[in-house]
């Protein structure tokens, strides 16, 4: 395999949430799981739905809709849990649908226009336009960091 020395490209996992498309750096994605039974954990922020058993490892799951403060939706056949890992934390993100893995050109990433939202902006690293799709690149560390909210 030829090594791309000038790695201007980034592989991302694309998922949809509330009719928008988001992208996460594939490096942080461990796996994508179907929605499954979870156990509620008391006294945690409301967006932490609970914990699941992922092949013997207990992993907390975050509902990204609640996290982004958009209306909640019923979980269905398409609902996916994207297991991400950052630093030494492993967390599952509940999304409406996981669509794609694709390459994006780093040069095409634009910063988020200031006008859109205020709170949510923190989670966003930038936006990428590919043909007629608009991908919102997420800052995983912000999503996982619940103490600083």
């Amino acid at each position, binding site marked *: 395999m030829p090594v791309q020395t000038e790695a201007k490209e980034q592989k991302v996992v694309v998922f949809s949430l509330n009719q928008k498309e988001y992208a996460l750096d594939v490096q942080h994605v461990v796996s994508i799981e179907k929605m499954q*039974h*979870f*156990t*509620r*954990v*008391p*006294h*945690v922020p409301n967006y*932490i739905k*609970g*914990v*699941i*058993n992922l*092949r*013997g*490892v*207990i*992993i*907390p799951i975050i509902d990204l809709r609640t996290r982004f403060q958009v209306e909640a939706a019923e979980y269905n056949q398409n609902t996916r849990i994207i297991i991400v890992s950052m*630093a*030494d*934390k*492993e*967390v599952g993100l509940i999304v409406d649908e996981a669509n794609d893995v694709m390459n994006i050109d780093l040069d095409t990433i634009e910063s988020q226009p200031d006008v859109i939202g205020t709170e949510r902006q923190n989670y966003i690293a930038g936006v990428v336009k590919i043909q007629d799709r608009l991908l919102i690149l997420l800052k995983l560390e912000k999503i*996982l960091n619940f103490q600083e909210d």
Partner: protein
Amino acid sequence: MEMSQYLEVFIEESREHIQSCNENLLKLENDPDNLELINEVFRSAHTLKGMSATMGFEDMANLTHQMENVLDGVRNGKYKFSSELLDIIFMAIDHLESMVNSIAAGGEGKEDVSDAINKLKMIESGKIVNQSDTTQTAEIDQANISKTNLNYDQFEITVLEQANEQGYKVYEVSIFIRPDCLLKAARVYMVFDVLEKIGDIIKSVPSVEQLEEEQFDNEFVVTIVTHDSMEDIEKKVMKVSEIEKVTVVPLKISDLKKMNNEDSPDENIEKNVSPHVVEQKKKEASSARDTTDKKITLSNKTIRVNIERLDALMNLFEELVIDRGRLDQIAKELNHQELSETVEKMSRVTNDLQSVVLTMRMVPVEAVFNRFPKMVRSLSRELGKKIHLQIIGQETELDRTVIDEIGDPLVHLLRNSVDHGIEMPEERLRKGKPEEGTIQLKAYHSGNHVFIEITDDGAGINREKVARKAVEKGIITEEQMNQLTDKEIFNLILTSGFSTADKISDISGRGVGLDVVKNTIESLGGTISVHSEENVGTTFLIQLPLTLSIISVMLVEVQKEKYAIPLTSIIETAIFKKSEIYYAHEQPVIDFRGKVVPILSLQEIFQVPKVIEGNDYISTVIIRKGDKLAGLVVDSFIGQEEIVLKSLGNYLTNVFAISGATILGDGQVALIIDCNALIK
């Protein structure tokens, strides 16, 4: 030859043998006449020598060779077992240990062992000044008082006695064959040939069969009755080529009788049998003894497995359990008789498998503790203190990962106790304490934790001294000094940059030690605290979480959610009528066996969505923290189960009243309640 594949085995086995040497040597110190123990040590040393020579680690082989010689001397009564001798052997073992470690780390296992070798050689040549030893050797030289090498049974003694009465002399002939000799068995045969011409051979160690099969090193001992003189025997045997050395020692029957304590009655009967039959008989006996010895060593064999593999096995197994649950369900839905039976059978097998997998990760703390007696011994000798280390609860099991981490902090604390805690013998006597100090190392399970206590009956911590030092070092201020409680002051010794020892010694106290200990323990999710009373002693209490260990829990249901309550916190379960609840300042309480016990609703505490209406009865689990009780209200009891405690991960830390989670048989997660957090 490609050795790398054997290297791992070599390292593991070497460690096993070194450890067994350590243990047996320590036992020997208290029971120096126990021949069995000496033999055990000798065997370990011998195996080590063989292994290291095969693997080409020459330093190790040389050292073990010297060690073996000395041990052999001890075994044969040539040298008296003394603390000095033990020190030297321990020194050699320390070298061996570091060489093995170096090999394990990919090194060549080379080390300067000349000091140990020289000392061992000095023992061998009798130069180590040892009062009892020198007098004994002198006695042998001058008065020809016999010192026996071998053990004789009653029958052999009788035979020797009769030979003696008939004017024969009894000698023990030790023959050393040159190490480079190729056909040892042939030389043995020739030696036996020579000896049989002179007299009758009563006994040989190792046995004749073993000698013929070359199952011996370079030395063997033969007992012979003859008319010839010592010199003649020596000369005649030396004529056989490739013999390095022959020593002939006369034997006194009266001494043998004293030594002999193993009477075998059935052999007593045949008194008038010729020496040849005796030999035959003895061969059988000695070979029988050898097989039993082998059995003992075999039973301790273990396989070491990488912990990651165990983790993988555990996770795979849990997957299996989940699928088993699904199969079970499918079988029920299909109502297929044969399928159901198969699934049921599989359930039983997986249950057994589960307990095996779970216990595999647990290691008794003995794995860490067993190196301490030797350490404390050598430290106390170095410092000129008298210390007895008492170990309690070494069978307490801890998860392997914790075991691996806890060793160094414990070493540090023990060194601290030996160095700073226990006083010098004179000082102890002055204080009216027994001369010998005691350090107690104790491990036990309690609740969700394992506790390790290190208690010494030494000087204790001087509050003033610690406080002043802390002020000096800027850890606390002058005002704080008077406000802090004793306990708070004592715990200051765990902060960094602290050392109260007047003298800085090699053993502990550069002020970097105890805070490292604290950090390590905290990184394991544990805590450490100090309790002390001046002139009475100091206790370090380490609390370690049972991460990834197995605990017994009671599974309960709160509405539709399942929770696990550690059995260690539970006193019992009780069912009350609602009308039996009283209120004391808004706090619902019940009368439980004459005690007023507050009750807590888990549904409220955990904000469990309410779906089931209660009835007139409430089910409670009575829990305890110290001497305080509380009743947890639940909706139903499911039953007792052994579970694997898992953490909620690094993302969810410090969830109120939840100490962890576990995966149930159906693959779902149940949270484990931390009873300590519920009782204030």
